[in-house]
């Protein structure tokens, strides 16, 4: 490593920079690692009987569709095209990586986003083939039976399974805001237990990553994200509300391929998904630069697909790949549908991003108290106070001040 690289590593490893070309040597080494890992997995017993090829066939998708998906997945994860066969192989071996998916304080929206689509994408189908050992939302078992099932899965796959977490963890009132199972385990205990013997923890959705909506002011339940609770385990955050299935699949695929977590940014988000800003790949960006803004819902500008900045779009402050990957098989995304970005993949998004107001009109906690104040209101108050002070001083100076004798 030369001096510049060493300095960069020391000071900026957690910046947002995405290195999309790491050179021949890096990729051939990575390929070897992946090949070795996939061979190991192939020889391991399948944890689930579901076969991706059969699932695809049942959905009327061809091998060609699957390979198209594999090359797109390669591109999304910023790997060269030569990795496509490995990607396809990894998808076929997904059923060998056990996953325990726990559901904490949230709306189950991330599960819903994946499960409820009427024309599932290959990303979504692949998630169906993972060996889901335990999932409170989906499984038939309940009570002691479910507990037993969880214990067994944790014991069988100790140190090997991925712990996927959906939902925040309430801490107020000793965590009594959320308990689970026949023994009344709090969410915090539940999470610590399941994450404890996992290989890595994947926090899915903004609630699990940063507390999300439950953590919005005044945060009555004392909700926090997984990374505030679980220490000493690799944690991958996949925020957004809901998290994009493409990003969940990408992260799990990365784990299948390498046995490691992907490169993360300073908020522990995979860089392949959160390295770029919504704003910089937005189809309405030209209208932003031109100063052409939608001024009211349904106005002339809205009809012409102008920029939604003045309707409160937070794309310029939000890092995510929605503008590229989109949702529902790449059909559309919020800005495409005519609503601004609400910054759902950023921390504290509900309090600081998710309002239909321009950036400058965000309400914040002013030093004078209360959250319902814009910076301009606070600032004009400040100027008024200063103006009154100056006015008083000027008036007294004029009335009683002493001018020097000349």
């Amino acid at each position: 490593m030369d001096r510049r690289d060493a300095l960069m590593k020391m000071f900026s490893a957690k910046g947002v920079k995405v290195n999309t070309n790491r050179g021949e040597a890096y990729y051939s080494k990575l390929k070897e690692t992946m090949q070795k890992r996939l061979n190991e997995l192939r020889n391991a017993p399948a944890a689930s009987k579901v076969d991706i090829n059969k699932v695809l066939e049942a959905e009327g998708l061809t091998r060609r569709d699957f390979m198209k998906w594999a090359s797109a997945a390669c591109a999304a994860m910023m790997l060269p095209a030569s990795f496509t066969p490995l990607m396809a192989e990894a998808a076929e071996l997904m059923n060998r990586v056990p996953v325990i998916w726990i559901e904490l304080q949230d709306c189950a929206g991330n599960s819903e986003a994946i499960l409820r689509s009427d024309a599932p994408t290959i990303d979504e189908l692949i998630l169906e083939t993972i060996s889901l050992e335990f999932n409170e939302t989906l499984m038939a078992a309940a009570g002691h039976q479910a507990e037993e099932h969880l214990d067994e899965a944790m014991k069988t796959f100790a140190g090997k399974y991925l712990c996927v977490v959906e939902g925040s963890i309430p801490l107020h009132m000793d965590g009594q805001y959320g308990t689970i199972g026949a023994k009344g385990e709090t969410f915090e205990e539940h999470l610590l237990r399941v994450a404890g013997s996992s290989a890595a923890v994947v926090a899915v959705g903004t609630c699990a990553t940063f507390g999300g909506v439950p953590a919005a002011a005044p945060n009555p339940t004392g909700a926090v994200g997984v990374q505030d609770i679980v220490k000493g385990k690799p944690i991958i955050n996949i925020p957004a509300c809901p998290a994009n299935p493409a990003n969940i699949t990408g992260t799990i695929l990365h784990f299948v391929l390498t046995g490691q977590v992907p490169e993360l940014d300073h908020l522990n988000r995979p860089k392949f998904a959160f390295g770029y800003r919504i704003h910089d790949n937005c189809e309405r960006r030209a209208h932003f630069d031109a100063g052409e803004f939608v001024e009211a819902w349904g106005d002339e500008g809205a009809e012409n697909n102008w920029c939604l900045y003045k309707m409160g779009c937070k794309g310029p402050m939000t890092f995510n790949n929605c503008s590229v990957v989109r949702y529902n098989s790449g059909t559309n995304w919020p800005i495409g549908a005519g609503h601004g970005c609400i910054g759902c993949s950023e921390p504290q998004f509900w309090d600081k991003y998710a309002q239909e107001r321009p950036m400058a009109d965000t309400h914040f906690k002013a030093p004078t108290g209360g959250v319902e104040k814009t910076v301009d209101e606070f600032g004009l108050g400040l100027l008024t106070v200063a103006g009154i002070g100056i006015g008083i001083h000027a008036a007294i100076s004029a009335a009683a001040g002493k001018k020097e004798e000349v």
Partner: protein
Amino acid sequence: MKPGYKKVERMTGFMRINHWVVAISMLAAVVTGLYIGHPYYQSLIADPAVDKYVMAWNRWVHLMVAIIFDVSSIVIAYLYFFSRFEKPYKKILPTGKNIKEFMAVIVNLLTFNRSKKFDSTHSDSFNTVYFLIFHAMLAWMLLTGLQLYVHGLESGHSSIGDWWPWMLHFVTDWTIAFTGGTNMDVRISHHTVMYSIITWVMFHIYYQVWRTIFWKEGDINIVFGGSKYVKEEK
């Protein structure tokens, strides 16, 4: 010149030019900055986008004056210590003499010039500390502004080389954690400090005019002609 008065030089030509460059930059930064945060005029011009480019021009002006601002601040920071004219840092150090002068100037302001027990020939301790607050706020605007700016350089490249975004991250990433953990907090801070700076300017202009009227030493001329007048010791 009135008999009994002597002329003292207080700002060199360069210092005065710098002062007005800063003043104009500030005005331009406020006008364009408010537009960037909340576009307050419409550009429903019946021309293609390439002709109007209103937001882009506002951002261009904002970034350009920011750079002029930054360069002038760096020059000022240098002059604090190495000026051959007056080294302001000498008036900032909390020495007994400086604290005494600082208090005497405040007393002068609060007694409406009924008490004036300090030497007003040179830049006093109170004014120097007041300018230091301004420069600290400017430095903060520089750091938060560059943090907001580097969001657009995700590729890690720039026209002047990869070192630039790298350096910006290195120097300004801490402002996210410092202001509250999100990009929006950095923006709120950048916006709020603008109002603090305007408040600062309000008092600054008032105080210089007030001094001119009540001290009768032509203080306002410092920033135009570079000098003021003081009574000669008898």
